[in-house]
């Protein structure tokens, strides 16, 4: 059984169809990359998997770990082990990063029938992950993402991922806005989490990230459809040729 199985997924926003029949299978232990030009529907796919309710699924099925993902609320999906690293993490004044993360961890632990972890016990776990992402402990007493630079926000997403230990991690353009050093640290954090029990879907526009997080499979998303799939070499081909050629092929393939 695949960890994630998407069949013929059609998604609309404001009556405008963005995803036009996505098929995708991801098994535990695999890292898939989804690449595509702007407007292709990459983020929409990520948000639907994270259960954002503003996206209307007009057709298709998504099964996660044998369960119907589309029937789950965001918090259920998270407790079942799905994590999305957002492209634009929101700031939440008044709730500290540390408190937020511990609350999330405890919500998930409670769902799994485990005891809650208190602030004292949380600290060593927290510090270990902070170190992994080269983040200053002082940032953690600040409000969630408040005053964080773009790079800090992205690292904070991966920090959360490291603490929450999901089964399926979806990284939505995690590399956008990062300089080379930040990119390396983020990739390091992500790679440290690769395991046979975990799957990842890395959504990206540029190939560069994939030099650091080498995927097992690459899919090209153009105009709401996956037009090509292949191995890591496909990413290099895209880098060389650009999306234009794929877009042209896609236009030819689909009826008007």
């Amino acid at each position, binding site marked *: 059984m695949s960890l994630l199985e998407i069949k013929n997924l059609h998604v609309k926003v404001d009556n405008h169809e963005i995803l036009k029949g996505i098929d995708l299978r991801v098994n535990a232990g695999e890292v898939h990359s989804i690449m595509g030009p702007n407007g292709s529907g990459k983020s929409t796919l990520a948000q639907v998997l994270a*259960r954002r309710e503003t996206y209307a699924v007009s057709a298709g099925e998504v099964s996660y770990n044998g369960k119907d993902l589309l029937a789950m609320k965001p918090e259920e999906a998270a407790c079942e082990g799905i994590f999305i690293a957002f492209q634009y993490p929101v700031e939440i004044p008044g709730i500290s990063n540390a408190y937020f993360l511990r*609350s999330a961890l405890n*919500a998930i632990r409670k769902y799994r029938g485990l005891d809650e972890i208190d602030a004292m016990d949380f600290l060593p776990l927290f510090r270990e992950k902070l170190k992994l992402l080269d983040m200053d402990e002082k940032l953690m007493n600040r409000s969630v993402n408040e005053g964080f630079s773009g790079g800090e926000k992205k690292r904070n997403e991966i920090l959360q991922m490291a603490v929450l230990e999901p089964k399926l991690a979806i990284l939505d353009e995690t590399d956008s806005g990062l300089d080379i050093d930040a990119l390396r640290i983020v990739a390091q954090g992500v790679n440290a989490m690769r395991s046979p029990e975990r799957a990842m879907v890395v959504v990206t526009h540029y190939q560069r990230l994939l030099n650091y997080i080498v995927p097992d499979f690459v899919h090209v998303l153009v105009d709401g459809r996956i037009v090509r799939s292949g191995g890591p070499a496909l990413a290099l081909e895209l880098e060389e040729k650009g999306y234009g050629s794929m877009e042209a092929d896609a236009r030819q393939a689909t009826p008007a």
Partner: protein
Amino acid sequence: MITATQQLESYLESFSEFEKLAAGHNLPWLRKLRREAFARFCEVGFPTTHDEDWRFTNVSAIAQTAFRLTRNRCVRLSQQELEPYRVPGVACQLVFVNGHFARELSLLSNLPPGVKVNSLAGEISDNPGAIEPHLGRYLEIRRDAFCALNTAFVEDGAYVHIPRGTLVEEPIYLLFVSTADDAPSMSHPRNLIVAEEDSQATFVEDYVSLDGGTVFCNTVTELVAGDHTVLSHYMIEREHKQALNISTLRIQQGRSTNVVSHSVLLGGALVRNNVHPVLAGEGGECLINGLFIGNGGQHLDNYMLVEHASQRCGSRQFYNGILDGHAHGVFHGRIIVHKDAQKTDAKQTNRNLLLSDDAQIDTKPQLEIYADDVKCTHGATIGQIEGDALFYLRSRGIDEVSARKLLLFAFASECFDRMKQGPVRKHVEGLINQCLFQLAKAPDAAGGTYRENTGRKWEEIG
């Protein structure tokens, strides 16, 4: 429902009875104070929505009820009944039942030497000389009928005197309990707090009610801040949801004073809290920090009038409101900068969160500036719970109800982050937490339709 004439007759009867027997009835200055105040009340009557200062608040629930002073002056409450209202870590806790001091229920042991905390009625009887220079000297009875009415019926409440140079570490706690009577009853607690030069203290007024009933509490506090004093004042309103509560805090600030006033409105059906600091001495600072949380059909009205009467004074007003159900909140922030108040620095901010389609907020800044070298800013926002923030929390496994509660708490924490760490802040945080927990439950339970902000940010007005 009564007519205006019947109402006047009822109050006249109450006043005549009261005047004869009240503490200090034999003191000419006090008799005069009461009579002039009552005359003023008769002259103006209760405000209507045609009065500018009461435009958003309809007081007919008070005006059209024949309130009498509590007949049952000696309501006996047990220690057990008050157990839930005891707060640890205070210098003293004075208990007032329906406006009357209950010595047997009060705790007075932890006060530093020289500090006087007594019932006002007791002080009027034993030591009127201490009271006369201050009582009624600051409160403007021409302000509104409620101030006049309170002064007409002035008798009991707290009298606090902090001698020069004294630091009172622990808070002075005043608990006002209202209980049901067989008829609609009113009380007019009056507090007089005099802090001499160079002293520091914290005062808390906590309004609670046992049982239901139609109760009207009309309270006034005159707080006299001598030069160089550092004072904190808390007003907590958490009576039951049918209670009527009008409160006025009149602060007189001397030179280089630092006064912080916190107002937390959680209970009551109709609540109006007036805060009126006058910065009379140079270099004074005043911070007014408010939070009001309304649900069901509550009406919570916050009115402030900050008067800059001297140079180089600073004032800050920060009010946060959370409204659900079909609650109605009002914020009316007036700042008057008198002609000679140069180098004034005044700032006012009101932020409001509406949780349902039927919740309503009226927010009105009013700046009257007569000096020419001043800095004066004001701003207000009205918004809903951020959809993006809510989704973010849920995407990490936090269920919707808990996530809403976290966000409401974060919004409210802007207010208590301005409170000094200590027993009072802890107490207030606990009360707010309880209150928000009710609000964060399933939208329908709150009585209004939930609306989620699907992308529209805070609306800035003014």
